[in-house]
Structures are given as C-alpha cells and as structure tokens.
C-alpha cells in the first residue's frame, strides 16, 4: 500500500542503525540486500546521517548557512525556465519549514525567527495559516506534542514533479552540494515523479494546500467500485407487497402509474447492472425486514412523482428557522422521508421535532404491549400509544456539546456524538438511550448512519475515523492516517466506502472491507467540514472553511471543479434527488444552488486518465442562484423525495 512505503524506509533505516550499533553485521547485510529494492542508492550514501531519523532534526549544520542556502535555492527557482519554475517553487515551502524546525530544534531560536520572518510571508497564501502555527514553536520543548511539527517530523512532504523538473533539481543540488539543503531534501521530501510536461501555477495551486503536500499517484491507483449496485429487486419485491398493502379500490388507479414508472429511465438504468458497482455481497448487509420493503416501495412511488430539477426548473425551498437559539445549535439532520428533524445543542441535549402532522408517539408499556395482537397487519402502529403524541421530544444523556446526529434509514434509531467522546444510540420508539459506544479518546465531530442501516461511522478529534455496527460495542474498523482532526465523514451510497475530510486538508476515501484508504485527494486550503456523494456515486463534493466547494471524480481521484461563491464556512452540502443540482449552505446566511448536471456532462465529454490531470473547472457558470436568509446561518439542507429543498437555519439575533 502506498503510504506504507514511507514509514517503511524510515523504519528500515532505524533498524539498520540499531544493527550497526550492536555490530550485527550479518543481519545488517542481509537486511540491506533485501531492503535495497526500495531504498535507492542515494540513501546508502547518507547512511551516516541515519542518526537524524531517530532524533528528528539533530543537525550539526552551521546555523549561519541556512539562510544563505535558502536564498540560493530561491534564486535558483526564480531563475529557472518558466515551464519548470512553478514546479520547482513547490519545494520552497517544505524546505523553509524544515530549516526552521531544524534551527529551533538545535536551539538557534533567533536565527529561526529571522528566517521565518524573512521568507514566511513570501509563501503561498494557503500556507500562511500553518506558518503562523509553526511560528509559535520557538523552543525544542514546544515541538514535543505539537501536532504540526510531529506531522512534519514523521512524514515526508510529497511533491509531484515531472521527470524534467526533477532532473533539473537533482543536477542543481549535485552541483551546489549544500549539505543542509541536501539533508532536508533527502530526509523530508518525497518526489512523486511523473512523465509529461511540467504543470503550470494554477494546476499546482489546484491540488496544493494539504499539510504534507500532494497525494502520490500510487495512493489513487486502487480500483474503486463507485457504482450503485442493482437494487435488491425492487420490482419483484414491490409487486406482492403492493398488492397486499392496498386492496380493492386503490388497485385500479395505481396500476397505470406502476407501468409508467417502469419506463422511467432512472429505473431502467438500475435494472442494468452498473459495471462499476461492487458485488452485492461485498459487505455483509442485514436482511431487509418487511417494514423496510414497504418503505422502499413507498419511497419509490414518491420519487416517481418528483420534479426533475434543472436551471429552468429550480426547486422550492422551505426554511425551518430555530428561534431563541443564540449559538446553542450545533447540528441538525432531517430523515430521509423528511418527517422528522433532529437538532443537537451545545448544552448536551438532542431535540427531535416532527415535520409532518403525525405526532411523535412512544411505545406502549410492557403490560399493554402484551395485549397487542401480534398477528395483526398493523402491529407496528398498534404498538404505539396514541395518546402520547408530541410535536417535539428531548433526548438527554450526553455530557458535552452534541456535534452531530444521524437518523437510521428506518427512522427508529438516532445516533448522536458528542464532545464527551461517546456515541449514543437512541430509540425513537421508546425515546431513551439504548447503547453508549465508547472507543474514541477525544471529542467526536461527526457520525453518520450507513444508507443501508446497521453500520455507522464516526470522525473524531483523535485523528481517526471508525466504522461501527450497531450490535457491536467495539468499532469494526479504525481508519487511521489523517494527520489532524477528522472533521467529517460520509458513507458512499453503496455503503462499501466512507469518505473523510480532515483538518490536514485532505479528503480520503476508505474501503470498509479492508480498512485501507483507496483515494487521497488534496486541494482544499482549509479544514473540510462537509462531504456529499453524488447520486450516481462517482463524484464527491467537499467544502469547508476555505469557502469553496470542490468536486472530485472518484474514478481516478481527480479534482474536477471548484465552485467559488460563499463568503464564510460551508457547513452543509446536498445533492438533489435527481442528481442535477447541488445545494450548499453556509454561515454567510446563504443557500446556493449549483448546476451539477452541466458539470457532469462537461466532465464526461473529456477523456481523462490517471496520469493526466484534467483542468479544474471553476467560475460562476455553474452557480444557478443564491438565496439569502435573514441573518440565519444554514445548519442543514435536505432534499425531500419530491425534490423540495428543506433548510434548517438558526436565527442569529445577536449580531444584527
């Protein structure tokens, strides 16, 4: 696997070092012989510096030479040919960072600060935030436990370069023989070489910005089954259930509708099996209950009535505004069938509102339940206490801010995650907490139920994402690899993958079956707070505090488009049920609609392959409309089955 190579090298060198220390020549030779496959010759030469791998930045380099060699490098970059200039320029930032850390580590604080002040502001805008964080570190003590310095210390900064540029750089380094520079470049930089012409500045900027540089090509080589598998035979399912469910008079008006639905292009597409879809048994899925089947049919019938949206037919939007909330609302979610709204608050409670005339009922008591005729068709309805209906219910149990809530697809369960580093599973029938899942060590930022139910995934401040099943106390998979908080998580519509967005400014796609990452996508310049998969499953939209929405093609992990327009952090994204529109909601009190259909048509017409980076589409051409609310930041967006857009916002009476 791709990233395993990086630590492997370090580990190998460390092991070699240890072997040498204890004078175990035979083993060393053996290991060398074996490891030679991966370690290139240059590394052999620097074996004497292997020490630095163990001690990080220990260096006996003259502190005076750092600045001179940086200036030298900068000079070289600026004076090189225009086509190579920008690619070469990519090494300036990591070199500066590592020089700074090396100086700090060796106690030359003054020199370090000097260097940073002189060249820090020259770096690209999107690196300034990290530089600011690094600038805090002025002593060796500060480095221990610092997230950013640890990341830099233990990971190589990945730079993608064309063969020509790389050879140019190598020649330069060979000529100059700057020991400081050579050391840093060998230890801390990893060049991912590709064949082809060097990239220009905008191409570089599009994918730059992550904490440890770009993703290597190897990271995105694995095949991703991004298709949606054939629905478990909704037709055969539908027919009998339908007949059972309705009888007599309902039968006749429904029949023509059914026939019509079969001709629906969406439906016929589903019956053809998608070549990119995973085998249906790739992950174990719980069997469908009768109730689920009824629900599926209902949903299918609803969707046949939905409006297909486009630039000419924009959706209607209903806004649910939370009043008197004064910054206490942290998250909100609406059920798939748009019947309930759950809201998490900073005072540890979760509130559920009903959005339809049906009230929120609780189950009858155990004694009363014994009287219920279990053979009755409407046993589920009979279980509920008719007199207990309320428009909203409160769930109390967490010990810290609730950061995310998620409904199960059958609407009987609700998950919530909190600052108290627990996840709670609530029953929406008896309105109590059923399970407390513990495992994360730090506040949990996000939780999502799988679209098929049973599984759920969480993202946490402890830099891991985890996959759980509702009937297991322990997590099934731990997705580790992010260098900072995992801020958001999202299930792929086929449930085989989860995507995570992180404060290290990378989006990762993880395979639930193996637990490995299959895509790493860089290009965000700030933490990512929301992810959304397109209806077709091929594209992923991500957004965050850099106010841009990026669209990724999961087939190769390419950045496809960048939607700019929001002024503040985007916290919610959703695709219309027909897949033609993307709606985004932001703290700048606006909801914007984007023409996703146009984008996917534009993208499909292009021939892309793995080594070639397609041009990133930007611009206003895709934005259809922006709707402002009255100083109410948008917390959540949701398309109903009929493509009515629901927005949840919190009225902010203080700042106005």
């Amino acid at each position, binding site marked *: 696997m791709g990233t395993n190579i990086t630590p492997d090298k370090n580990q190998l060198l460390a092991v070699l070092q240890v072997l040498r220390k204890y004078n175990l020549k035979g083993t060393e030779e053996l290991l060398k012989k074996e490891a030679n496959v991966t370690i290139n010759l240059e590394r052999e030469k620097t074996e004497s510096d292997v020490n630095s791998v163990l001690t990080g930045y220990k260096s006996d380099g003259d502190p005076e030479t750092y600045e001179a060699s940086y200036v030298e490098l900068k000079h070289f970059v600026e004076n090189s040919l225009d086509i190579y200039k920008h690619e070469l320029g990519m090494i300036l930032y990591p070199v500066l960072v590592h020089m700074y850390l090396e100086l700090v580590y060796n106690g030359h604080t003054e020199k370090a*600060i000097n260097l940073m002040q002189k060249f820090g*502001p020259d770096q690209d805008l999107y690196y300034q935030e990290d530089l600011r964080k690094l600038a805090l570190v002025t002593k060796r003590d500060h480095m221990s436990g610092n997230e950013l310095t640890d990341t830099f210390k233990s990971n190589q900064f990945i730079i993608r370069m064309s063969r020509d540029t790389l050879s140019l750089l190598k020649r330069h380094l060979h000529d100059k023989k700057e020991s400081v520079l050579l050391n840093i470049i060998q230890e801390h930089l990893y060049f991912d070489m590709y064949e082809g012409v060097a990239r220009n500045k905008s191409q570089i900027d599009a994918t730059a910005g992550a904490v440890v540089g770009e993703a290597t090509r190897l990271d995105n080589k694995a095949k991703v089954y991004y298709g949606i598998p054939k629905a478990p035979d909704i037709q055969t399912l539908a027919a009998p259930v339908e007949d059972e469910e309705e009888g007599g008079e309902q039968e006749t008006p429904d029949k023509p509708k059914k026939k019509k639905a079969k001709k629906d292009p969406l439906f016929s597409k589903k019956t053809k099996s998608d070549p990119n879809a995973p085998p249906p048994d790739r992950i174990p899925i719980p069997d469908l209950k009768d109730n689920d089947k009824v629900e599926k049919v209902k949903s299918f019938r609803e969707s046949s009535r939905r409006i297909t949206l486009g630039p000419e037919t924009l959706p209607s939007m209903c806004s649910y505004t939370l*009043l008197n909330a004064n910054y206490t609302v*942290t998250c909100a979610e609406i059920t798939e069938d748009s019947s309930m709204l759950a809201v998490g608050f*900073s005072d540890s409670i979760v509130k559920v509102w009903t959005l339809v005339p049906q009230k929120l009922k609780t189950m009858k008591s155990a004694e009363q339940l014994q009287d219920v005729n279990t053979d009755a068709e409407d046993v589920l309805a009979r279980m509920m206490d008719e007199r207990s209906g309320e428009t909203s219910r409160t769930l109390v149990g967490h010990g810290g801010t609730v950061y995310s809530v998620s409904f199960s697809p059958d609407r009987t369960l609700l998950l919530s995650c909190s600052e108290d580093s627990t996840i709670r599973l609530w029953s929406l029938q008896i309105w109590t907490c059923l399970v407390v899942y513990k495992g994360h060590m730090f*506040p949990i930022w996000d939780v999502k139920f799988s679209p098929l139910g049973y599984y759920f995934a969480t993202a946490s401040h402890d830099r891991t994402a985890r996959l759980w099943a509702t009937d297991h106390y322990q997590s099934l998979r731990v997705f580790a690899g992010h260098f900072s908080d995992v801020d958001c998580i999202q299930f792929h519509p086929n449930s085989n993958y989860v995507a995570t967005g992180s404060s290290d400014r990378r989006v990762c796609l993880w395979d639930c079956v193996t637990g490995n990452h299959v895509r790493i996508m860089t290009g965000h310049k700030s933490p990512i707070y929301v992810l959304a998969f397109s209806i077709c499953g091929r594209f992923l939209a991500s957004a965050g505090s850099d106010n841009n929405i990026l669209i990724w093609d999961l087939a190769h992990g390419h950045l496809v488009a960048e939607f700019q327009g929001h002024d503040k952090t985007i916290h919610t994204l959703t695709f219309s049920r027909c897949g033609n529109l993307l709606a985004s909601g932001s703290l700048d009190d606006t909801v914007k609609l984007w023409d996703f259909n146009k984008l996917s048509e534009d993208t499909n017409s292009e021939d892309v392959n793995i080594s070639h980076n397609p041009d990133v589409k930007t611009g206003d051409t895709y934005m259809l409309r922006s709707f402002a609310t009255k100083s109410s930041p948008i917390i959540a967006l949701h398309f109903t089955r009929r493509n009515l857009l629901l927005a949840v916002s919190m009225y902010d009476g203080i700042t106005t």
Partner: protein
Amino acid sequence: MAKASESDLYGTSFSIESMKVIAESIGIANLPDDAAKELADDISFRLKHFIQDSAKFMHHARRNKLMYHDIDSTLRSRNIEPQYGFHSVDSLPFRFASGGGRELHFIEEKEVDLHDFVTNTNVKAPLDITLRSHWLCIDGIQPAIPENPPPQDKEMQKLESVDPVNKMNKPNKESSGKPSTGKQKLRNVETVQIKQLATHELSVEQQLYYKEITEACVGSDETRRIEALQSLALDPGLYEMLPRMCTFIIEGVRVNVVQNNLALLIYLMRMVKALLDNQSLYLEKYLHELIPSVITCIVSKQLCTRPEFDNHWALRDFASRLNAQICKNFNTSTNNIQTRVTRMFTNSLQQGDKLPLSSLYGALHGLSELGTEVIKTFILPHIKNIGARIEVHLEGSLISNLDKVASGHIKALLVKVLAPIIKNLRTPPDYFEEYKTDYGYLGPALQSAVMKARTQPPQPITPTNTSIAPVSATISRNITAPMGIVQNTVAPGRTIVMNPPNRGTPTSGNQKFVFVTQRSQAPGTIQPSPQPQQNTVVKIMNSPNPQPKVVNAPQKLVVVCMPNSAATSSTVISQNTQSQGVISQSSLQGGQIVSPGISQVPNQPQFAVLPKTNFISQNPKVKQEVSIDDLSHLV
C-alpha cells in the same frame, strides 16, 4: 505589550511586566527578570496554542465567534480543569484606560452582591427554542415576506440611484430574483446599450398588501392606520412597491389639495414619514415626486375647507419637518436638494403682499426648519416687511378674522424661531427702541422674548438647533384636531351622500361611484359635476348600521380628474375594487378618500408637478416655484 517580532507571523506575547504584576497579585514579590521572561514566553505559547485548538471547537459548533465554552472544551480535552464561573454576554467590550504612560485594555467586571444573587427568586427563564417554517423560495423565486431579507438592501438601492450604470453591468438574474432567460443574455452582445425597461411585477400578495395598506392609511380607523403606518415604517420587503406607494401619495396630495381635505393630507404626510423612517428603503429615486407633494402641504394657500377654524397649521408644521428630514437625509453635492428648497421658499418671500398669509406662514416655517443659518440669512432680513404686513391685519381697523388668525400664527412663529438667534446676535442690554427700529412691528414682541430667553437658564438645545431633528411623533396630537373637524365638515352642499343613513338594504350588487375632481381654478368655467360647488367631494356617509354586504359587493369606481378646463382630456381610472387597490367601500365609509387609485401601468412616468392649485393661481410667481421647471428636476 512587548512584541516578539514585527512580523505578522509572530504577533504579540505577554510582557515581563505583565508577569510581574500577576506574580505580585498572587503574593510573589520579587520575581526575577529572567524567570518572568521564561514565564511570559511559555504562557504566550500555551495561550496561543489553546486558542488555536479552541478554534476547532468553535468551527464544529457552526460559529464564527470564539466563545468561552470553546476554551473550556479545549481545556477539558487536555485534561485540565476548565475555568468555572465565566460567562459571556452578547459581546465583550474591551474598556481602554491609560494614564501615567501605561495603557490598559480590560473587561469591566461588576461586583455581584451575593445576598441579592441568592435571594433573587424570580430569575428570568430563557425563552424556549422554537421552530418556525417559512418559504425561502418558491420555484426559484424568493417571496418578499418579513421572514426573508429585503430583496435589495439599502446600500444597493443607494448605489443604484447614485450610479445607474452599476445596475446595467450587474447580471440581471441576481437582482431581480426572477429566473434568467435567454433574452437577457442578448443585452451584453448588443453594441448599443439600451436602458432596460424596469419591470415591476407585483405578486398577488403584494397587490393585496398594497390595497390593505393604502386603505388603512387613509381610512377612518385610527388603530388600523397606526398598524399600517408601522408596517410601512418597518417592513423590509417594500422595495418593489415603492413606486406605487409614492404614486399613491402624490396623486392623493394632488387631489386632496384641490379638495381642501385636510385630514387626508395629514394621513398622506404620515405615510411619507413612515416611508422615510423605513430603514430598508432608499427614497432618492422618488424624491422628485415626493418633495413637491410635501411642499404643497407646506405652502398651499388653502388646505382645509374652513381656514379660520381648522388647524391646518399643524399640517404645515409637520410637512416642514418632513421636508427638513428629507433635506437632511438626501442632500448631496450633486442634487443640492436643500439649496433648491431654500431658494424656492426665499423667492416666495420676496413676493410681498401678493403672497397669501397662509403660504407666507408655510414658507417661513419651511425655512425655519432648515436650521439656524437659514433663518439668519433668509428670514431675518425680511422681518420688517413681514411685520408691516401682519400689522395691518392684527392692528388695523378692517379686521378679517381669517387674516388675523394667520397673522397671529406668523407672529408667534417668528418670535419663537427668531428669539434665540437674536439673543445670540445682539448683546444686552436690549433697548426697546433699537428693536423697534431694527425689526419694525415685531420689535417689541421679539424684545420681550429675548429678554425672557436671557433670564432663563441656557437650555442645552435651542429650538432652532433642533430644527432638522427627525420629525417627532407629535403629529399624532395634531391629527386629532383635524380629525374631528373633518368629520364635522361634511356639510350639505359639499357632499353627495351616496349611502343614506336610513337605507335598509344595499341597492344592488354592482355599485358605481363617480368621482369628479375639478382641477380648474378659474371660478367661471363650466363644470360637469353634479354640484355647482367649485370643489366637489363625493362622499359616502357613515351609515349607522354598516351593511357588511355592501363591503363585499363588487364595485366600480370611476375617478375623473379634470384638467384646467372641462375639456376632453381626462384620466379615467376604473377598477374593480376586489382585485385592485383603488378605493373600496370599506375605506370609503370613513368618508375621506378622494384620491384616485393607482393604475397598474408600471412605473408610469409621473408628472412631478402638482396641478395648479388654488394658491398658485393667484400668485403666478409662486406657481413657477412649484412648477415643473424647478421641482421635477430636483433629482
């Protein structure tokens, strides 16, 4: 604060002095410098680190504002006990204090009396969080309802009126809120830039609102009127209806000035005030229509049917204050509103005896509201002439009651506004003779007023200084008088009673009212109106038992405005009241409306001039002032 570096990247850190002060405050007297330095560095690092981490908590709470519990969460996540007892109010204002070469920023902390705190039983419970739903957009169009932000904020409106080019460059789809169509794209391709016709489509709801509001504003129900005016003053979504509202007002003034219907004029002026007060509206585009209307209400010769009894002075005062507020709000170096308004008032002052006394009063009041400097330069030099003129009426033998009342008002006004100015202009002692020679007839009165002003303790704000103060709400007091009067003025001969008090049932489902408005000022012209009176008011009397059926019955209203003579060209606005906001029976029952309804013609170029009202006809020069040459170009 000592700066670690000049660079942005490093920012500030704690100074050694801060450390020492903090050390002292916890009882460590002599903290060595190097220890303080070490501490300062460490604490700066840690605090910055905490704040960086707190930002994560802030972002996940969907906020852009760091709050105390973000810091608490950070501390908790690092296994450090959070700082209890802190809470933040809406915002934390940093107070600044300096002295002895030291500068200090601090947050004011009030001492809490624990006893009060403990015994206080009736603590206010916070309001419960509620969910409210509304339509944010319908088929891609955002409805203008109070829950939505105004379609165009004030800044945009201002920009648009100041720099019309700006609107042309803007993509149309954003501003209009309507789906973009292929047609609009063409515009950019055309080489000749044609100003787009402004389309003002009003939704059915807006039409209904317009109808309700206009009815309530000029109807008889005072509580409804207050509600309606409040809505006009506060509702954010009125931008699209503004042209119509303005047309309603100016048409209303135009007609009611001729009809001498004081009450309606006052209601219309209150509408102007409400629109002026609305924070989301920028009226500049409509000033060329509004200012003539307002000024008409100041200087018109006759505003009411019985000038000797009705308090039309209140209307003139109110309109003057409105005028001053408009000048203050919208005067720019390009439109020079204040200069032009001032010049107009001044010119009328120079007409001498030809100017009716009521118009003179209006002009004087209009000027006096524009500020001390205006009074000093434009009123004071004329005081002798004016004095001589009103002396005739006040002291002379041929006393006409009407003129006497008017002269009395002018005198009171002049004394009121001039006294504080003269007080400052002249040095005591105030000799009776000097005043007499300088100010003529008004001398003695002024002298006594000045003497009185000198003896009184200096008031913080003199009346003249507040002249351009926002129009106060005192008009409501002024309203009451005319209200009652108008009700009484329904004199036979002036009113066609169309709804006799004793009528049992409504005559038919379809009623027809004919309003004939006579604009002719020549007394001798032939009049097609059913009454031989010069100004005819068509009224429906309040029936003692109002028939609700009448209200529901579809009606047809025909309002005929006759130009100068009873010639052919006349405006006929005939509308079905059920669908159009013209005048419906319910509002007519108040018995005051004579204003024509607003036709549906969008953005019809309004003739900015008032029709030749009575006062103009007798004073050709004044007529020029309020004629098209001047005011229609105000904007």
